[in-house]
């Protein structure tokens, strides 16, 4: 499969730089890659290459599908994260049939860099999820995730597998079931944000002193919208069992999307018309003046 004839013009070495990658591949490759950037190194992997130095790959082809190179990286279409592809500047003359090419000690050690994998943008990988994962997708979905997430979390923890035809067949039936409605309900990202906000907030309900009132879900929903800017439908609210008729500290439960519930502390205080900061500052000053004059008198 490696055409020896092409060795003359386009000779290239693929030197693998290992960065602690756990690429599920041939152990021989891992050993070869671990030796770093030494150009005299043979590219490991293909059996034919162990003997000679001619890698007969044509120049334009970075065929990742070629089993020789990509045997370890199975279905990932990228040529490898840290691959550095170089090319000899001066062509190596063709040798006799069966003989290794004779390399000049200086001329044939001049290389030209073609591609450095570490400077390319990180591409994403396609994975088939086996469980519903928050922020990624549902079980049975083929998602495109970043390589970091896929290799460090999803694949080691068994949350996803590679989307081979066999795996896809297994999850095809699951897909039909899911559509019928046996979905595990996941909280939406916007719902997550709402939950995080509600966990941090505190509701202040201003009620008047000249009317007799009782707190109802409608009133609390209105105050959520007015004071905090959160729209809560009354059916998603649950108030304490005893009716609230006086000022004090209470709580209320908000259910987001019917999945998660947050307990929001609620203070029922006297209703005040909205006042400016200037007004409060002036009030504070007045109070301090009064204190001072009181101290002087006493």
């Amino acid at each position: 499969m490696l055409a020896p004839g092409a060795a003359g013009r386009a000779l290239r070495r693929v030197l693998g730089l290992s960065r602690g990658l756990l690429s599920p591949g041939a152990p021989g490759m891992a050993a070869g890659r671990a030796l770093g950037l030494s150009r005299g190194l043979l590219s490991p992997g293909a059996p034919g290459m162990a003997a000679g130095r001619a890698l007969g790959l044509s120049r334009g082809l970075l065929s990742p599908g070629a089993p020789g190179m990509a045997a370890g990286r199975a279905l990932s279409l990228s040529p490898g994260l840290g691959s550095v592809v170089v090319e000899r500047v001066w062509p190596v003359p063709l040798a006799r049939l069966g003989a290794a090419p004779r390399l000049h000690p200086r001329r044939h050690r001049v290389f030209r860099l073609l591609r450095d994998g570490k400077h390319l943008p990180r591409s994403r990988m396609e994975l088939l999820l086996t469980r519903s994962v928050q922020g990624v997708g549902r079980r049975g979905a083929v998602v495109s995730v970043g390589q970091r997430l896929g290799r460090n979390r999803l694949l080691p923890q068994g949350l996803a597998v590679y989307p081979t035809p066999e795996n896809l067949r297994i999850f095809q039936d699951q897909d039909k079931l899911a559509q019928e409605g046996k979905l595990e309900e996941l909280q939406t990202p916007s719902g997550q944000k709402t939950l995080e906000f509600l966990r941090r907030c505190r509701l202040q309900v201003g009620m008047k002193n000249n009317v007799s009132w009782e707190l109802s879900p409608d009133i609390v929903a209105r105050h959520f919208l007015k004071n905090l800017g959160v729209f809560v439908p009354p059916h998603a609210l649950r108030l304490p069992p005893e009716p609230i008729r006086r000022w004090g500290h209470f709580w209320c439960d908000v259910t987001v999307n019917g999945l998660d519930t947050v307990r929001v502390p609620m203070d029922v205080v006297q209703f005040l018309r909205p006042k400016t900061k200037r007004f409060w500052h002036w009030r504070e000053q007045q109070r301090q003046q009064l204190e001072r004059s009181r101290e002087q008198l006493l």
Partner: protein
Amino acid sequence: AKRPRQEKVKEKAPPRRRPLMAMPVDDVYLTWLYKRPSYELEQAVGMLKRFQELDFTHPKQFVYINVFLDMALQKKKKVDPFSSSVTLPHRFTDEVNKVLVFTENQQEAEIAREHGAAIVGGLELIKWILEDEIQADFYVAVPAIIPKLIPLRNKLKRKYPSSRRNSLGSDIPKMLQFFRECHEYTVEDEDIIKTRIARLDMPAEHIIANLKTVIHDICTFKPSNFDPIVRRLVIRSSTSEGLLLNLDGILPQVETVEEKEEENAVDEDEQKPANQESVST
């Protein structure tokens, strides 16, 4: 993030993996992440009434509207800030405007006093007005006395009697009745009109009728072949927040365009059978 910077500014919500739409997906949501919702007129009035119940506020509070105007005409020209009076179909306040009538004729003065003019007089009023001893909301005059009222032009400015504003004429009772019960509004800040239109305890149809009268009157100030003058319409009561309104059913322009199309269609239909008949014969 791989998303370019420009998209962040254009989107209405902060960019996330799944971009947020104008309509929220969940039942509980943070309102500042979505576009401001706009309501239908009847729905908005119903909401204002509900707010009054929930907030325990005064039932007889006023309903206000803020109208945001598009004053641009073609080629850098603008509509001047105007002020106009309109008779609302359903009264919401018992206050009557003070009207001052200029007339030399005794009979006309009698008629004016009968019909409820606050002040009636002739040339002696001019001096008092210039010295600010008398003030009225509206000034009405007969054509005969206009040459003598010229010194008041600067003083009265917009309120100066003129036939365009229906304050100059011979039919005193009609003018008086109009000005005593009319509702006046002006354009502030070159763009905005803020007025009271109704009370919250009036039935919803009355509030809607009042609002439509005001909007139709505003729309007469810009020729209809340009963009509609009303850009945004916000309704509120005196204690609640403002609700953005859908402009669809309120602006008069749409109706005239539709009427024209219907007329054209009707004319074509009438012509077609006529043609067919002529051909057959």
